[in-house]
């Protein structure tokens, strides 16, 4: 039985470890296809770009990974190994230029996006396994200086982003959106207040209902237990009466006397006291040095 328990625990740990490692760490976060006057590379060109996001609490190295626009060739562009600039800090970004000019450096891919066409980017790990992909719809690809990406960094929802944010948080695009929405639709705050009070009540009413019935169940359970106990006691005392002729009252009287005797023979506390042995290896009280006097010497 113990072995099975251990196997179960080990399996659970293995699954949780697998679950943690399988979580996406590097993600395609934002893409701009039709870059007219937006982000500029160090050669002064406005090229399409791809933003990769490190959705983890530790640094990740993109060196040896692949970017591609072809589902049949996920290893189309190898991101240079050994370039320390390919390390992305936790919750940080890296932008690649999809300009077809790989000889410009590590961050320029050997494929290019064409404005007005649907574009898909594939991110594969060093073994060529697909980790993430993102498709920019034709509509987003047509509009100049508009990107397509996750509405929140690493989030599951993607949309056209009117304000592109290469190398910075996508959330900043929507910053203030909620404020504006509430200012327009709920200037007095009544809508928010009613909704929020309802939700608070809903959560706490559920808690109330669950514990109302849990409590009733427990009260009934303890009643049943005490009933069963009293039945057993009655049966035992009946059996005792029939066997030895001692009534319940006598048993109670004996118990009371024993209790009183115990109380008298003991002081007031009824808790269990544990006295731990304190082992002191050294104490000046048992030191021989302190017990000795210097031998008197005659000074001349």
């Amino acid at each position, binding site marked *: 039985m113990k072995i099975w328990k251990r196997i179960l625990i080990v399996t659970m740990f293995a699954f949780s470890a697998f679950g943690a490692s399988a979580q996406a760490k590097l993600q395609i976060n934002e893409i701009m296809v039709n870059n007219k006057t937006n982000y500029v590379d160090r050669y002064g060109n406005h090229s399409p770009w791809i933003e990769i996001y490190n959705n983890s609490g530790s640094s990740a190295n993109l060196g040896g990974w692949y970017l591609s626009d072809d589902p049949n060739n996920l290893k189309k562009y190898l991101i240079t190994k050994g370039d320390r600039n390919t390390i992305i800090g936790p919750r940080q970004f890296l932008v690649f230029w999809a300009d077809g000019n790989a000889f410009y450096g590590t961050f320029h891919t050997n494929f290019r996006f064409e404005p007005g066409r649907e574009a898909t980017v594939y991110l594969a790990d060093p073994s060529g396994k697909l980790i993430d992909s993102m498709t920019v719809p034709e509509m987003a690809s047509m509009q100049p200086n508009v990107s397509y990406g996750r509405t929140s960094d690493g989030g599951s929802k993607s949309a056209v982003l009117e304000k592109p944010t290469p190398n910075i948080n996508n959330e900043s695009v929507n910053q203030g959106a909620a404020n504006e929405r509430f200012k327009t639709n709920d200037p*007095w705050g009544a809508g928010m207040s009613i909704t929020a009070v309802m939700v608070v009540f809903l959560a706490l009413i559920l808690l*109330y209902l669950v*514990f109302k019935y849990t409590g009733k169940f427990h009260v009934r359970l303890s009643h049943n237990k005490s009933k069963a106990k009293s039945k057993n006691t009655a049966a035992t005392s009946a059996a005792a009466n029939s066997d030895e002729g001692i009534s319940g009252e006598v048993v109670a009287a004996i118990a009371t006397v024993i209790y009183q005797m115990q109380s008298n023979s003991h002081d007031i506390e009824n808790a269990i006291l544990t006295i731990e042995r304190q082992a002191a290896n050294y104490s000046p009280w048992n030191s021989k040095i302190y017990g000795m006097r210097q031998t008197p010497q005659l000074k001349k």
Partner: protein
Amino acid sequence: METGFFTFLADNLKEFFSYTSFAHFTVGHGVMIIAGLIFLYLGIAKKFEPMLLVPIGFGILIGNIPFNEAKGLMIGIYEDGSVLNILYSGVRQGWYPPLIFLGIGAMTDFSALISNPKLVLVGAAAQTGIFGAYIIALLLGFEPNQAGAIGIIGGADGPTAIFLSSKLAPDLMGAIAIAAYSYMALVPVLQPPVMRLLTNKKERLIRMKPPRAVSETEKILFPIIGLLLTTLIVPSGLPLLGMLFLGNILKESGVTRRLAETARGPLIDTITILLGLTVGASTQATQFLTWNSILIFALGAISFIIATASGVLFVKFFNIFLKEGNKINPLIGNSGVSAVPDSARISQHVGLEYDKTNYLLMHAMGPNVAGVIGSAVAAGILLGFLSN
């Protein structure tokens, strides 16, 4: 030669003077130092929430010693990389409050609530103060996110107020935190008049049924069910509610005594010191003394009063539906604001004024701890709606 030396000496002294606080002292600094001294006086002499007011008051003194900011001495709380700035990151990033909640969970006994679960609704009703203050803040011209952060003062929960304001309105966090803690300390002053005003003598004398004994199983189930029910509805409250219920299961499981003792002892003490100190130090006069801060203080008082009134009135309303013998004394309505356990103590004190043998403390602890859950849920809702 000698003239040159004296000029050098005079220049040196002049430069030294430019480094002293006297060269940069303003009326604002003086005002804030007096505020810090008042906090210390209230904490030490009057014993109003000393655990909070003493570190906050001392923090105010630390934060308002002026210095030559232009020299980049790296000593101010707002200077990136300074020691105080690093300690302040726990407030700014909002990770002190969940740790405080862990400790609160490990020291809170939810038995009163479990034995009489209908009291949880009083905790919900008292959260109305948050949204009352939210509406008034909007009317005063605050942005919705700022109004939400200000409103949470009415939850009477310092860590929750800091957590939410760090997310919604970091620029107002100092004022919100100071207001929240100040009013929590002033609960004995703010609540009793409202409680007396809204109740009559007959209601104040209501005796409640003694709470039933709660089994260990129920106590263990509470944090598990509580977590699942509240966070499945409001996942944005997870940092606070998750830590609160974790602390509570450490306490109630009976098998993690050491962890529970650490959470409710050394850990919460350490975080309270850091939180109090850095919140106090964040009130630099140059950043803190603004018209908005004054408005926030006024709104904080209003939200406390609305929260107290809502709790008391809700109990009176609830009593209409309850049978004789099951009625709730409305004097425990005030304890629906969290401020654990001060607001429950107020219920007890006011109750004893009218009936020397009517002990309301145990009953008031129910809505009091429900208020902690309720304010964390409310913070989660505001965060969910207003965070972007």
